[in-house]
């Protein structure tokens, strides 16, 4: 039942059809796609059947999220299997249009994304069992459960779909499900506003993707039948360069809108923070990745021949997103909003990898392209892990303090030691610090940058290194940002306005502070371990996913990447560059251990004392550095990029001065996204203006309406003659 055939780029793959309509023999056999279908079925079961059957909300949470966790694991298994074996599996569901059934295809690329989504889905599902309980008694969690499962299912389907129609259905269902999740706490205005903005951007993007598929399908088949809508037909089609450009940029626009690429990112920092935190984790961690998947699929798989300047534009937008994302993140004091802006940054980093891969591909340098693509994909995986972890951590904080504003937090490390430690791991990972995973992918991206002198184009040779500098800037700013986020949230003293630090408004008192329950803890511990594992043993994972560039670009890097043994990552050759996360980790750990032991051979005294107050004696917690003050130097340096409104209001003192009449100093700062005024406000204004003009057509008097008919007839008659 297996047959090898020539896939594009003279690579042999073995086909094991699950249900193969092309062949006379229909045979079900156990294959990755069956596994992933099982996963989908259990998700649909969780979405549709479970809420109908189970009336107890508490039980519903436990059962549904356990089911989604199992489903995620199944998806991970399917994904790992298919990436590991390099199989290409197909399945045709007898749904959809009669001549256009739903095509599913599981190849290593989709398998990889399936793994990423499933992995984080698994972690978040465990976390959700604990987290969602927080809503019990306040509102019905049934919609959350339903749309969560649907959301997961649709993400799986997006990466599995193999025809334009089904892809778009999954894509839009994904948007809708997440829309309802963002809307979950619908009595809040900001939730509604964010959800609305999100859905509008998502839908406009989806229409653009649809049009892109239209271009490709139209050119592929000429539309006499429905067959042109399958990805297979598009793969085979030859596109003229003009139409290919149109198709690519339409699709890129659509996917960029979903991924939150600057300047299409404005919905992202609105929508991600207001969603329930488990959903934020999924949205930031993996939903954005489906857009990355889309870009890779369209570019390298469907169009697969393109000029270098496409890549240059992708690279450029990636860089802009990276820098703008992190700069805006630095200006936030809402913890989840800060994380959301960091998603913009990280999507930018992934796009940098993809853009470089595109440039290398178009200059026919497949090995370098493979390196760049691996860098992008690896960052995709990494970002899913650490961003998921961070959002879950933020959720835990939110769960405990009912507060998203960092300025009202502080000192949580004493109250929530687990969360604090795990969040720290996330912070280190996202700041691209060794030995955690974020660093590996950024390092690979830097290596790809450093290889651009190989390009036979002088302009690119000169310009691309500047991009590397921008990436370095972003990485350093990210570190600054997370020092701020972590420092203000978890370190120092409680700085809440309304609650004195002696009695912080924590949910549960008692010993151990307000630490979250074990479901949430495990949900965070697992991605934290993943962050470390991915950082310390990158060679394993890179060898595992090397099949993807091999199939897409016809070249792989594993031969060189792991040439020096599993400990060392040598993307090109060990003379060129090498990195060993394992030794870094072990080295630091052993030195720390040795030094610690050496210094503790004898009993060492540690005395606790109040902090030094310079003799002032009246230090209060409000005198700590705040998030706003922390980012002040950077705000000043990059001020021109923001829309800043800074106000200091001084209330003069009024007598009697001794009691509360001492006057006040009020500092007000508002940092807005410049892009809102640059792109979105004008569009909205223009729409309303046009709308007003069109409103004049309908001005109430019947004579005027009759005149319209009259004129229409006359005009048509005149034109027809």
């Amino acid at each position, binding site marked *: 039942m297996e047959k090898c055939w020539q896939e594009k780029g003279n690579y042999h793959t073995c086909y094991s059809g699950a249900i193969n309509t092309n062949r006379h023999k229909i045979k079900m056999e156990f294959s990755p796609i069956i596994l992933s279908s099982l996963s989908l079925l259990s998700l649909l079961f969780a979405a549709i059947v479970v809420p109908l059957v189970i009336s107890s909300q508490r039980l519903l949470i436990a059962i549904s999220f356990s089911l989604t966790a199992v489903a995620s694991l199944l998806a991970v298994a399917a994904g790992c299997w298919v990436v590991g074996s390099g199989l290409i599996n197909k399945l045709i569901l007898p749904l959809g249009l009669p001549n256009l059934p739903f095509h599913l295809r599981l190849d290593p690329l989709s398998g990889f994304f399936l793994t990423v989504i499933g992995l984080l889905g698994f972690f978040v599902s465990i976390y959700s069992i604990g987290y969602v309980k927080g809503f019990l008694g306040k509102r019905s969690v049934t919609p959350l459960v339903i749309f969560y499962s649907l959301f997961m299912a649709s993400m799986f389907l997006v990466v599995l779909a193999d025809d334009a129609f089904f892809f778009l259905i999954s894509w839009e269902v994904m948007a809708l499900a997440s829309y309802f999740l963002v809307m979950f706490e619908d009595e809040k205005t900001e939730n509604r506003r964010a959800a609305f903005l999100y859905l509008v951007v998502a839908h406009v993007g989806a229409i653009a993707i649809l049009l892109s598929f239209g271009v490709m399908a139209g050119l592929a088949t000429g539309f006499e039948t429905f067959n042109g809508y399958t990805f297979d037909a598009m793969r085979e089609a030859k596109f003229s360069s003009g139409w290919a450009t149109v198709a690519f940029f339409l699709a890129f626009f659509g996917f960029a809108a979903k991924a939150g690429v600057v300047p299409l990112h404005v919905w992202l920092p609105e929508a991600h923070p207001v969603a329930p935190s488990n959903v934020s984790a999924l949205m930031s961690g993996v939903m954005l990745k489906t857009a990355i998947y889309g870009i890779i699929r369209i570019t390298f798989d469907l169009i697969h021949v393109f000029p270098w300047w496409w890549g240059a534009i992708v690279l450029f937008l990636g860089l802009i997103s990276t820098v703008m994302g992190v700069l805006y993140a630095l200006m936030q004091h809402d913890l989840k909003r800060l994380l959301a802006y960091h998603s913009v940054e990280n999507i930018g980093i992934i796009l940098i990898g993809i853009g470089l891969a595109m440039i290398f591909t178009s200059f026919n340098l497949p090995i370098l392209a493979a390196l760049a693509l691996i860098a992008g994909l690896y960052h995709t995986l990494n970002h899913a892990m650490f961003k998921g972890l961070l959002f879950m951590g933020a959720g835990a904080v939110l769960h405990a303090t009912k507060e998203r504003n960092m300025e009202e937090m502080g*000192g949580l*490390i004493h109250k929530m030691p687990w969360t*604090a430690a795990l969040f*720290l791991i996330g912070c280190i990972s996202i*700041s691209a*610090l*060794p030995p955690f995973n974020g660093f590996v992918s950024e*390092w690979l991206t*830097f290596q790809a*940058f*450093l290889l651009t*002198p190989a390009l036979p184009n*002088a302009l690119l040779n*000169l310009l691309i*290194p*500047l991009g*590397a*500098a*921008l990436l*370095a*800037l972003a990485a*350093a700013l990210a*570190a*600054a940002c997370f*020092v*701020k986020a*972590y*420092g*203000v949230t978890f*370190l*120092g003293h409680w700085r809440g306005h309304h609650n004195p630090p002696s009695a912080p408004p924590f949910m549960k008192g008692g010993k151990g502070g307000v630490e979250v329950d074990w479901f949430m803890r495990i949900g965070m511990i697992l991605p934290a371990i993943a962050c470390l594992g991915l950082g310390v043993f990158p060679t394993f994972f890179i060898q595992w996913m090397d099949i993807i560039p091999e199939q897409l670009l016809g070249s792989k890097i594993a031969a060189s990447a792991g040439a*020096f043994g599993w400990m060392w990552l040598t993307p090109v050759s060990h*003379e*060129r*560059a*090498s*990195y060993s996360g394992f*030794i*870094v980790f072990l*080295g*630091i750990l*052993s*030195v*720390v251990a040795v030094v610690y032991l050496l*210094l503790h051979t004898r009993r*060492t005294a540690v*005395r*606790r*004392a109040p*902090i030094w107050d310079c003799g002032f004696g009246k230090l209060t*917690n409000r005198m*700590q*550095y*705040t998030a706003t*003050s*922390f980012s*002040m*130097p950077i705000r*000043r*340096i990059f001020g021109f990029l923001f829309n800043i409104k800074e106000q200091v209001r001084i209330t003069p003192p009024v007598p009697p001065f001794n009691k509360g009449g001492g006057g006040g100093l009020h500092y007000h700062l508002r940092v807005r996204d410049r892009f809102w005024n640059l792109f979105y406000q004008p569009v909205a204004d223009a729409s309303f203006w046009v709308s007003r003009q069109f409103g004049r057509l309908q001005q109430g008097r019947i004579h005027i309406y009759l005149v319209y008919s009259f004129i229409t007839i006359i005009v048509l008659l005149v034109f027809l003659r």
Partner: protein
Amino acid sequence: MKTYPLITEILQIVAVLILAPIFIGWIRMVKCWLQGRTSAGLFQPLRDIIKLFYKEVVLAENASWIFRFTPYLVFGVSVLAAAIIPILSTDLSLALTADAIVLVALFAIARFFTALAGMDIGTAFGGMGSSREMMIASLSEPAMLMAIFTVSLVAQSTSLAQIALVIGHGPFILRPSLAFALLAFVLIAIAENGRIPVDNPATHLELTMIHEAMILEYSGRHLALIEWASMMKLFLFASLGIVAFFPWGIGEGSLKDIPIAFVLLIAKLFIAGIVLVLIETGLAKMRIFRVPEFLGSAFLFATLGMLSYFILE
């Protein structure tokens, strides 16, 4: 496993651990001479560190484990960096662990934790120090990367050993690109190590502190580790400059080279110390918001280096 790289590795780590305070001592000595003061001697920093190890640790009431863990981590990172940079020999058993970019990241992780520690105790000083430190770091990193980029263009590698080999063994060419890169590197090194004109390591004046503000609450062995680590950092930066720009004499694979390499290293550091002191004495501490311009020019030099590589070489 060959024994030679292991031996050099150990030798080198020990050398760095001991030479780093002495290098600082040398700098202070030269500075005293230039300012017409009597110096405390070459070994005073070493003595300070040892003294601190015996002191009691006074911890702020609010300090968490991060505050206590940071000194060890910072020290550990410095030791690891010392094991990676080919100071005495290019053939180190851990040389492959990291290239130039990883090295920058290693210093970044130390800084990350130092900044967190600064935030931990919850004073305005700590926060201010962290904020400024991170700002400076974020500006110096792009410049650093551009300098590395330029050097790696010449050497076709970011591996430090490879850079040392290529530049040390190739025909001696006057490369404008490397000259620019060196200039940039010096500026970055000054900023990274908190030297004048960016920061003043000798002052505890509230508003000018950067690095000192973060570690203000440290005492005893914690302070010792941090001080030692920062001395090593300066030493390592100097060695990094030597590796990248003046690698002649670094050993390559036999124990015979080590004494020569050692002597040459001392000589180079001798000069480096003098140069640093000259810079520090010649300049005045800058306002904090002048630092971006300072680092901007470092970035400019590095970029010019890269451009001149493509255009001139």
